[in-house]
């Protein structure tokens, strides 16, 4: 059986989640490996969510937020950008493959981009293989 990765998507309510909705209503095809969690803003994402996701067996984490400057709360994603950049560096220095974590800015009108990003990210995770470093062994 081929490897089907589990990918956690954390999407901001106003842009990426709506964008995902648009991708759905326009009947765009993208892999089913993504499990989306909706949050109100990308700055609501506690970095521990990401560490925890990897521990609970996620093979990749994709974070979606509004384009900088378009945040529904004006400045939320600008804080999130700095914070998630640090998260990325920490994951990298601890030895996890940097390709397993990705942040994308996807607006509500970019259904196409959402489908593209998910397709590309899934392919990337498939090539990296299962994530075993952080996963809690049962």
């Amino acid at each position: 059986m081929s490897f089907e990765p589990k990918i956690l998507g954390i999407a901001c309510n106003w842009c990426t989640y709506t964008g995902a909705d648009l991708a759905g209503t326009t009947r765009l095809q993208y892999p089913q490996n993504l499990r989306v969690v909706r949050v109100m803003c990308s700055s609501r994402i506690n970095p521990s969510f990401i560490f925890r996701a990897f521990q609970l067996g996620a093979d990749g984490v994709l974070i979606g937020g509004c384009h900088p400057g378009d945040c529904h709360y004006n400045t939320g994603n600008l804080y999130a950008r700095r914070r998630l950049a640090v998260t990325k560096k920490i994951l990298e220095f601890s030895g996890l493959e940097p390709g397993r974590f990705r942040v994308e800015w996807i607006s509500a009108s970019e259904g196409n981009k959402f489908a593209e990003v998910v397709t590309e990210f899934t392919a990337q995770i498939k090539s990296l293989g299962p994530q075993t470093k952080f996963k809690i062994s049962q």
Partner: protein
Amino acid sequence: MTISFKQIEEKLKTEAKRLLESGQASVVLAYGKGYDEKHPMPYVARNPSDVANIVFNEYCNYNMARYLVRYPAGTKIAVAVKAADSRAVIQLIQEEKVKREDLVLLGIPVYGMKNPKTQEIIDGKTTGGLYNPVLYDILLGDEVHGQAIQSPYDVLAAYELMDKEARFAFWKKEFDKCIRCYACRKACPMCYCDPCFIDQNKPKWGDKSPQSHGNLMYHLTRFHHLAGRCIDCGECSRACPVDIPLYLFHKKVAKECEEMFGQAAGMSIEDKPALVNFRVDDSDKILE
């Protein structure tokens, strides 16, 4: 030029006595006798008669800024600070945990401090390349100059060159040693959350028993919480009973923060901590 620790000790005593007698400070945070010379202890002088117990020698590594947040707001505190400690004070002022006007900073310009466990000189590793306090009211002794300036990030080079598999193996080995005594958290001047995220039960962020996954969660999140705030005093790794080189990871995060946000922690009272601040023109490249 060598540092006269005796001279600093005398000056510390006279200043502490003067501050306590004049009422400018109601407590003085300094160093006191431990069970032997190599193990001085943090000491709180409250009366002018306590001052005789103050000592200062090359093993007085402790970061006394750790104890500032324990006193109620408005307490007048005098605190003995070395270079890294003064950055901790600045960082606490930035975070509005203490007020500048409540503090009297007794700056100690010093180098050649030693780790009592290994007898190793700690300058190159964990003083951030600084010898003179960044902020002080009274300087005990002359500013020191002429020491070789080392980049605080030099020690990282070997770890940055490792490939990710080796690096993961290294950190896994180190974190698996952790016995979860939380000495790192207790020694850290920036760890003042009550309760700490790891002590919370709802949500339960990580396992509290000393197992590999709980240890990983605790340490990675702690590194994240100290991002842009760690002032590189190295107390976490010296407090660690199983010698995990925590300062390396903290340094790496500090280095990345300095590169990405253009600001080192605790260098100026006017700054805001890097992660509670943003610039509209931060580059998206930092996410790559």
